[in-house]
């Protein structure tokens, strides 16, 4: 066991770290803003809004992230409509494909989290809003989404952590993230313990930061219902 192989390759781990802390927030960003309208659609009683979003979340929550990434990366490259059109400039790049599949995946989970929160809204508050003369959109903006989003903070924090850990899958499509760096170091020096231990510690620190951030968010936005 020699951790000198880690110090010799600190640059590789740094590059991987940068990729991870770029890719994950970007995917979360896109996923979050996709999930906002999707969750409202998913919670609606209109079948034309409800069922398409349900199929979307059903597919992305029902299949492993790894399968989705492989489908997007190797699968789509088999079709000439992707390969020979302008689409290819997007799908050629492993990073963009990874970002796309992560965004869609986290969008699906986030949609279901928000949907749950929307459906659990106290009926009285919505009726009160109606009684005040608010239209559906105003209600959504002023009452439904603010309350639902606040209530989603704890479970959304979990989703962020899952996304961070799920992002390790991108190392399988030639993106060098933290796990990718560990895999390269492991395969070059045959030191799985050193390589993956280091990667694990980095993920642990990142998770710790995420937990801290969400604790602050809960304090700020959920203090009124703290017991």
């Amino acid at each position, binding site marked *: 066991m020699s951790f000198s192989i880690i110090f010799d390759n600190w640059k590789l781990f740094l590059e991987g770290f940068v990729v991870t802390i770029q890719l994950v927030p970007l995917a979360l960003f896109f996923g979050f803003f996709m999930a906002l309208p999707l969750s409202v659609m998913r919670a609606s009683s209109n079948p034309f809004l409800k069922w398409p979003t349900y199929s979307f979340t059903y597919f992305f929550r029902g299949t492993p992230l790894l399968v989705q990434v492989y489908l997007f990366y*190797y699968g789509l*490259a*088999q079709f000439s409509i992707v390969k020979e059109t302008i689409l290819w400039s997007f799908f*050629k790049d*492993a990073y963009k494909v990874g970002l796309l599949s992560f965004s869609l995946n986290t969008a699906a989970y986030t949609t279901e989290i928000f949907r749950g929160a929307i459906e659990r809204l106290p009926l009285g508050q919505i009726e009160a809003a109606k009684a005040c003369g608010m239209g559906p959109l105003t209600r959504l903006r002023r009452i439904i989404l603010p309350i639902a989003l606040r209530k989603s903070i704890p479970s959304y924090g979990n989703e962020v952590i899952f996304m961070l850990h799920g992002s390790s899958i991108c190392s399988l499509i*030639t993106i060098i993230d933290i796990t990718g760096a560990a*895999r390269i170091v*492991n*395969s070059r020096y*045959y030191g799985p313990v050193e390589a993956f231990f280091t990667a694990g510690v980095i993920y642990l620190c990142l998770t710790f930061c995420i937990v801290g951030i969400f604790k602050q968010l809960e304090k700020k936005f959920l203090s009124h219902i703290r017991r």
Partner: protein
Amino acid sequence: MKRQFKLLFLVMILGASFVSNGWAGSKKSADKVRIGVEGAYPPFSEVGKDGKMKGFDIDISYALCKEMGAECTLVKQDWDGIIPALLAKKYDAIIASMSITEKRKKKVAFTIKYYITPAKFVRKKGSGIEITKAGMKGKSVGVQSATIHDNYITGVYGKDVTIKRYGKQDEAYLDMKAGRIDLLLADSIALDDGFLKKPGGDAYEFVGPDLTEKKYFGEGAGIAIRKEDTELAGRFNKAIKAIRANGTYDKIQKKYFKFDIYGK
């Protein structure tokens, strides 16, 4: 009553596990050899349509075992974990076209080589990419991660090209066909049989010289053994020489190649 059954069941399980352990233990040391293979490196090692392992490495494994009088089981293992799994005693030898290099010798012992073939680049026909530092500037090259080819491209062209590293050789082929990479670097035989001669491979061609630089490409492919298993290494060495001498090796390689890949 129920409790008694439970107890009986427990005793039976314990008894069975003792018996099977004892049996496996005594057999293994005598003449059972577990061999780690990769299964994603045609024509040397691949999973056939029927789900069985096939290829040059596989046939050679069975031939060597027969020669040694050992009973062999093949264990499929992905490349990037193939040496760690040997060290973790998941199997006793690696027969997976593994080149004998100084770096690997620090972790494992090798037998004598069982074949040697040069490495080569492949480009798309009409792409006009030349194998020089200037000609490859900014191009992307696909290699299998942690291979001699990875070491070579990293060591010689690392600053000039983008290196895409894949877990399996097959994945590099897929991305070459998809157009995500400009060049492939791999063993010339593997490229020829596993890529150029496969459907769609005729749009690609070899480019550049045969690469054999010993510093990177080692002394040919050998069988990797744990360092302490010197006796097994000796048996493998004897068996390799024997199948070379008695014609078994030739018979096997004729199935796959038109020339002698054993080298000098």
